[in-house]
């Protein structure tokens, strides 16, 4: 099998390089037309912010990936990237790589399930542009199956692996129903925005945003459907919030111990969760000493992130087992392609004999008797061919009895003179597949 994968990803190159080779949908469409039929007979292009990968079957039997890489670099008009930036996989290795990518174990954040959706849309894109053929289709269907199985059967995608999500995870350990709580996000930067999005996704009851620059607060507020709290009047409103997440770039503290102490007194002891995910910290860490105030900063949230990351890494052996099972299953199917023509020829050969003999009898017996003989002969041939067909498929599927498969196939062809009788290979798309890719 000469299936190849040419990959440039976060492990082989810097973000800058990955950005320069990223293919948009339009570019992918154009690049498919560059490759299709000339360099690859069929394939799929996957391009995300962390990887650009070309999968496919070269048009020639000789596997030379250099022209494909050259075409990509020329297409993107990029200089200074060498072949060392690319990883190249062949045959079994290429399939294993795709399966690993689909399962999320090759992602920058192990277990990131976003990649599965990206592979799915890339595959559908290739299908719609008639670039993905039968075997590629089978390979990618297996990859998608692995991705789904990984999510369902392992915990590799579970647990917060970003600080802002870890903050929400801690909040959920304190409050059961976020839809009855109100939250304030201070800071409209990237981290603040991410925290606000997580809270919105968790269906927080009321969401408020505060930022030193009002316009940025309003901008974020529109994005996450929240209200704006004036930054200079924060201390007046603090007691109204069950959750405060602060992520500003302020060089000094913006909320003091006294302000939180006043707020908790006004709340009559109702718990308040404070997530200070700014560096340097926005809130006086001494507030953590107050009863019913749960204060967490970057250090404590990073502990959760590290723990969850470790748990995800511990799931990799289970994912590899899923990959291995699917590879066995895929190659089982692939190996049967060897024997399909022989089985088909054998069945055709017997059917022809049966039809000849039935023709001879047709006018010599009554219609009822003929129908009985027709049924009987059909069953007879079915029973005679059942065991050889099943055994031949089993040998092929196991992938470990190649010698037996070849010997038996040759023997059957010679004994029944199959190659001269029928040309099964020429009549079946699937029969031709393996020849085409080997």
């Amino acid at each position, binding site marked *: 099998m000469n299936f190849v994968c040419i990959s440039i990803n976060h492990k082989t190159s810097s973000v800058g390089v990955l950005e320069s080779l990223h293919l948009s949908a339009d570019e992918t469409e154009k690049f498919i037309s560059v490759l299709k039929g000339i360099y690859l007979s069929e394939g799929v292009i996957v391009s995300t912010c962390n990887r650009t990968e070309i999968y496919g079957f070269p048009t020639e039997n000789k596997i030379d990936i250099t022209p494909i890489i050259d075409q990509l670099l020329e297409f993107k008009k990029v200089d200074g990237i060498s072949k060392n930036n690319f990883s190249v996989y062949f045959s079994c290795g290429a399939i294993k790589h795709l399966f690993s990518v689909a399962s999320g174990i090759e992602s920058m954040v192990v277990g990131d399930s976003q990649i599965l959706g990206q592979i799915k849309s890339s595959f559908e894109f290739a299908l719609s542009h008639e670039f993905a053929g039968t075997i590629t289709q089978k390979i990618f269907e297996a990859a998608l199956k692995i991705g789904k199985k990984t999510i369902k059967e392992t915990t590799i995608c579970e647990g917060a692996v970003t600080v802002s999500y870890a903050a929400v995870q801690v909040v959920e350990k304190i409050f059961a129903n976020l839809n009855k709580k109100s939250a304030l996000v201070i800071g409209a930067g990237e981290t603040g925005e991410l925290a606000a999005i997580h809270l919105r996704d968790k269906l927080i009851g009321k969401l408020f945003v505060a930022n030193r620059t009002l316009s940025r607060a309003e901008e974020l507020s529109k994005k996450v459907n929240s209200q704006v709290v004036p930054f200079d009047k924060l201390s007046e409103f603090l007691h109204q919030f069950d959750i405060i997440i602060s992520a500003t770039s302020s060089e000094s503290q913006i909320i003091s111990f006294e302000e939180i102490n006043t707020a908790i007194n006004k709340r*009559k002891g109702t718990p308040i969760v404070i997530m200070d995910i700014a560096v340097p910290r926005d809130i006086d860490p001494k507030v953590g000493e107050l009863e019913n105030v749960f204060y967490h900063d970057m250090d404590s949230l990073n502990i959760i992130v590290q723990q969850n990351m470790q748990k995800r890494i511990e799931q990799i052996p289970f994912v590899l087992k899923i990959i291995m099972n699917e590879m066995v299953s895929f190659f089982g199917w692939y190996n049967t392609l060897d024997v399909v023509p022989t089985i088909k020829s054998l069945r055709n050969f017997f059917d022809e004999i049966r039809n000849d003999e039935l023709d001879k009898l047709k006018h010599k017996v009554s219609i009822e008797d003929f129908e009985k003989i027709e049924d009987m002969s059909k069953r007879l041939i079915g029973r005679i061919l059942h065991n050889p067909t099943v055994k031949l498929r089993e040998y092929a599927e196991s992938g470990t009895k190649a010698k037996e498969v070849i010997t038996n196939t040759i023997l059957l062809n010679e004994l029944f003179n199959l190659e001269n009788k029928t040309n099964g290979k020429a009549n079946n798309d699937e029969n031709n597949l393996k020849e085409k890719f080997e």
Partner: protein
Amino acid sequence: MSIIIILNVLLPFSYAIGLIFYLADFYFQKKWLYDSKRLLVLITILIHSFYIVLRTINYDHPPITNKFEIFSLLALSLCFIYFVLELITDIRATGWLILAFAFLFQFISSMLIEEVYVVPDVLRDRMLGLHVINAILGYSGFTLSAVYGILYLLLYKNLKTKKFGLLFNRLPSLDILEKLSLYSAVIGFVLLTISIAMGFIWLPDAFPNFSYADPKLIGTILVWLVYGYGFIKRFVSNWFGKKIISYSLIGFVIAIASLIITNTLAKTFHSFY
């Protein structure tokens, strides 16, 4: 007779197996443990109920004639109330601590229970049976409330000291633990109220030496008042979180102290054994 003895020996093992499954699931979180532990508790409840019925029929009195029969009833009611709560809330991560209590009660009961054939006539009264069973269920509710309270404080401390270990990962949120503690206390309070009401109606007729100054009566009323005051504070004065949980635990300590003092130290007409 022999079946009762066999069940008496079997029950602590049944509770222990349930406890092991709950603990194992708490640590390892395996699907087969998660699925089978509830079934094990249900089987234990059925075996235990069968044992109680058999005992009642065989000895011709409800199993409330000595401390160790009471302990066995306490184990069953604790397990039963927890099972109902688990079915309603589908929170299964707290069962290990409750089953640990149930196992302890049943173990002591199975080790020390006596085969009592001759009991005073008053102990064969159905009203007494209902009075005592309601009281036991009531105290089981308070015990359960205290267990959830302990889990609340453990998680609270973990969150305050930034420890994100097993308890953080497995226990439900503080909100839920607080609610479970509250619901259990409410169930306990209602059942204890019924028991007290039944006692006021039935006890003066059943015991010639009945006295309103009886230490057990005063102790039970005190426990009732402590919990009642707690509910007023919770629903009227908005006591929340650690404050109400700490109060509930103080209530539980008073309830246990009252039981121990009135059953062992004070002289009471109210002693059935």
